[in-house]
């Protein structure tokens, strides 16, 4: 990992980059399951971006086919309004993934800045910021979201992503700070300081690139967290039903269509459930691969 830290000249940097991608490819090939993770993840992104464009809005409902089990016509059955469950999963993916993306961006920007600043400056600011971070980490997130649901409208992915991002940066800040603390004592940072390089240069050109993979991993983990919380909030039924979200489907399937009792509504429950499971699986596989790429110690043989 330390080899990729200081790209000295252009050619050396490109060699390093090539080595890096070769490393990525090696890890991917050793366990093909990880490639699967990347493919599924890409599939979800395509589905969220293109899917809703290809489907009619609103989705056609068929009063003669209300709450049907899976069939050839409707692969995952229909909902209580006679809409195709698979199509609902596709339209629902946009809210879910957009929120996750917004959350991830806010989490990473806020968490990284605070962690870097805190770890680099040390001193009084560090103490104050970390006290705040600890406090934020202690307040139980889901109950707080539930309470917030009474005053804040979570109707659009932007509103949801904003709240989740602002509540979620604590972990990233802590992680980035501890990484900064260990990096700042290393030789290359001391050298840069000795050379009189500006703090912005040291942070932007020396610290950030070497922490990028670490931050990326934390970002993916926060994405999973964002997916769970938002789907969960809709599932609990404390938010208005008007949005297209897998959580709304889960809620209606379990608490209104009685999917756990009647086999007719089973598809309605399985659709969003499978979508969440697949997305989880993909992210777990990708994080696992990233872990092995960036953490050579795990590559034992």
């Amino acid at each position, binding site marked *: 990992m330390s080899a990729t830290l200081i790209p000295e000249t252009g050619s050396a940097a490109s060699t390093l980059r090539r080595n890096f991608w070769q490393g990525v490819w090696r890890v991917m090939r050793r366990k093909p399951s990880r490639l699967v993770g990347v493919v599924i993840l890409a599939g979800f992104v395509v589905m969220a971006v293109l899917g809703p464009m290809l489907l009619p809005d609103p989705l056609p409902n068929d009063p003669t086919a209300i709450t049907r089990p899976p069939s050839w016509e409707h692969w995952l059955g229909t909902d209580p309004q006679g809409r195709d469950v698979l199509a609902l999963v596709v339209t629902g993916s946009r809210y879910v993934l957009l929120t996750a993306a917004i959350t991830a961006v806010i989490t990473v920007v806020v968490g990284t800045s605070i962690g870097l600043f805190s770890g680099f400056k040390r001193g009084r600011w560090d103490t104050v910021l970390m006290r705040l971070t600890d406090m934020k980490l202690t307040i139980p997130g889901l109950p707080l979201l539930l309470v917030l649901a009474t005053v804040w409208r979570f109707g659009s992915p932007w509103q949801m992503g904003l709240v989740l991002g602002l509540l979620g940066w604590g972990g990233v800040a802590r992680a980035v700070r501890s990484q900064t603390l260990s990096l700042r004592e290393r030789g290359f940072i001391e050298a840069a300081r000795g050379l009189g390089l500006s703090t912005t240069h040291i942070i932007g050109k020396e610290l950030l690139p070497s922490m990028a993979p670490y931050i990326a991993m934390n970002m993916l983990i926060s994405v999973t967290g964002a997916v769970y919380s938002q789907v969960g909030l809709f599932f609990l039924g404390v938010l208005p039903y008007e949005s297209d979200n897998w959580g709304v489907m889960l809620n209606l399937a379990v608490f209104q269509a009685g999917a756990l009792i009647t086999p007719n509504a089973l598809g309605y429950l399985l659709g969003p*459930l499978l979508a969440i499971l697949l997305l989880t699986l993909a992210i777990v596989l990708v994080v696992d691969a990233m872990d092995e790429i960036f953490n050579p110690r795990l590559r034992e043989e």
Partner: protein
Amino acid sequence: MTLIARRLAGHLARGFVMILVVATISFFIVNNIPGDPMAARYEKLIEGGMAPEAARQAVKVLYGFQPDGSLWQQYTDFMAGLFRLDLGVSVTRPGTPVLDVLTDAAKWTVLPVLAGTLLSFLVGIILGVYAAVKRSGKLGDALSISGSLLHGVPQYVLALLVVMIFSTLLGVLPADGSVDILYEPGWNAGYLGSLVEHALLPVLTYALSAYGGWILAMKSSVVTVLGDDFILAAELRGMKRSIVFRYIARNAILPLFTMLALSLGLLLGGAVFIEKIFNYPGLGWLLIGAVNDRDYALMGGAFLLITVGTILANIVADLFYTVIDPRVRSGEEVS
């Protein structure tokens, strides 16, 4: 011992501040509710023929503060009530103080969470050691992957799958409520049996959702210890494998005890999903109900109690760490 006392004092002070912060948050949320439920109720009581003073008093009892005082006055009223452990009166359960409702619900959260966590901790650390030692083998790999997956799957998905399998398909265990109403509450076999029967699936779900985290944490802890010099030294001295193994396990398990206390606190917050799905009358279930019914006093109280539980778990975790980790005990700063 003085170090522990000093740390405890610091924690209690910080915990106290946290509680004030959380209480303030819930106060302002209740105060910013669109439509102003307090004023509405006050108006309604007046319309119903109540004298203004009596109506104000009634609303104060319900929400814990004056409906028409200044913001500061309302806030101090609310906080003063908090210190008297007076959290107001639940709107949906007329006449019952919020505190009574909460203490009644707490046992339904704490016991299953405790049981599920301890169960998953035991299974997780044992399998975690195996996954670490055999990390190149097929079974070790499978264990790690099962850990990652279970760790990754959201709790509500697990809970739904558990209900689907054990209740809907197999029909062996109930998945609704905390006890059958046919039994007379008390120390009789039928009632207790029904209690256990209803608790099994929620406990299983808590355990399943936590197990992945333990196996992964134990694995990485053991892998780290395996690389330590003293293990090499022990092996070179020709110590028996079983003794070396005991060294490894003992050193690897220390950091996990801290995590155990922390996770108990986190699970209190996560209990919301499981209690909703199993219709289990704990704190999370109460909180959802309060949010849906807009029962603000109850909502604020449940949120506060869950937070206090989390804070306490954190304090216990840190004190525990102070006791077991020699570096902290000697006053060295660990960041």
